[in-house]
């Protein structure tokens, strides 16, 4: 939570400086942000490669555990495809790109901004923050209405970090390994899906 506020603070500072024309031209024209993004993706990979939780979960639950991230992915894309009919100004692939953020708002919004510009990038930022936030406040309702795996699926890529405490509390400690496994798989798939949909 504290970390998210720091991100927000830097984001707002950037907006405020730009609105007041206080950003030097030099910074605007360069593609520093692109190289920093590549470095970010490298670091995301490093975290995945050095993780030890993934195989432990696989050993404990067997193949069935892979159905959970699969359900998250298929469910999200179907839902997004359905509501994209309400947004005639946005293409199906742009909508799916936003949905493929799976609540990983930092990575997805930055990636999408690089592909499509700040407009769709902002949609991705807000949509994925809302998704994370929905788990933080609606987890008890999700468990009651959709079962104990529900907040894990809704949490998308965040179930290995920010939403893990909430999941532990409302689904139970026996769901921690599942949440970690799920988060890691979805986390890994975010940049792949996003760049896939936006390059179509």
């Amino acid at each position, binding site marked *: 939570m504290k970390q998210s506020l720091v991100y927000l603070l*830097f984001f707002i500072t*950037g907006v405020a400086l730009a609105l007041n024309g206080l950003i030097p031209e030099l910074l605007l024209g360069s593609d520093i942000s692109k190289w920093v993004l590549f470095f970010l993706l490298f670091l995301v990979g490093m975290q995945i490669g050095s993780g030890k939780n993934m195989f432990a979960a696989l050993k404990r639950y067997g193949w069935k555990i892979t159905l959970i991230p699969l359900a*998250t992915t298929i*469910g999200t894309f179907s839902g997004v495809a359905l509501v994209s009919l309400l947004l005639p100004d946005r293409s199906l692939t742009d909508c799916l790109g936003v949905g493929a953020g799976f609540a990983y708002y930092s990575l997805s919004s930055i990636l999408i901004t690089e592909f499509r510009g700040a407009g769709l990038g*902002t949609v991705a930022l807000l949509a994925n923050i809302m998704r994370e936030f929905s788990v933080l406040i609606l987890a008890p309702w999700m468990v009651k209405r959709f079962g104990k795996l529900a907040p894990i699926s809704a949490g998308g890529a965040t179930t290995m970090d920010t939403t893990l405490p909430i999941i532990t509390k409302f689904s139970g400690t026996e769901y921690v390994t599942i949440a970690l496994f799920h988060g890691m798989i979805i986390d890994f798939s975010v940049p792949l899906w996003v760049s896939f949909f936006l390059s179509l």
Partner: protein
Amino acid sequence: MIPIILCIATGILAGFLVRNTGFVKYTGTLLTVVITLLFFFLGVSVGNNEQVVRNFASIGLDAFILTVGGTLGSLFCIKWIDDKFF
């Protein structure tokens, strides 16, 4: 898409190779610093984009609709999987 996959793949390999060294402890911190920096740049490109600033309300509504669709979709799908397989 190719450079993106390459960056992640190199990262996974590097992470796997250094997984038992002390260096791994710092990747999380480094990641936070890099993301913070990128958020600043994202803010700058949003602030510089007149279209985005002017249409912020409709952008927010679009985002909300996409969130409801994606989240509810995943909830219904996981309920079905849960009932069927778990």
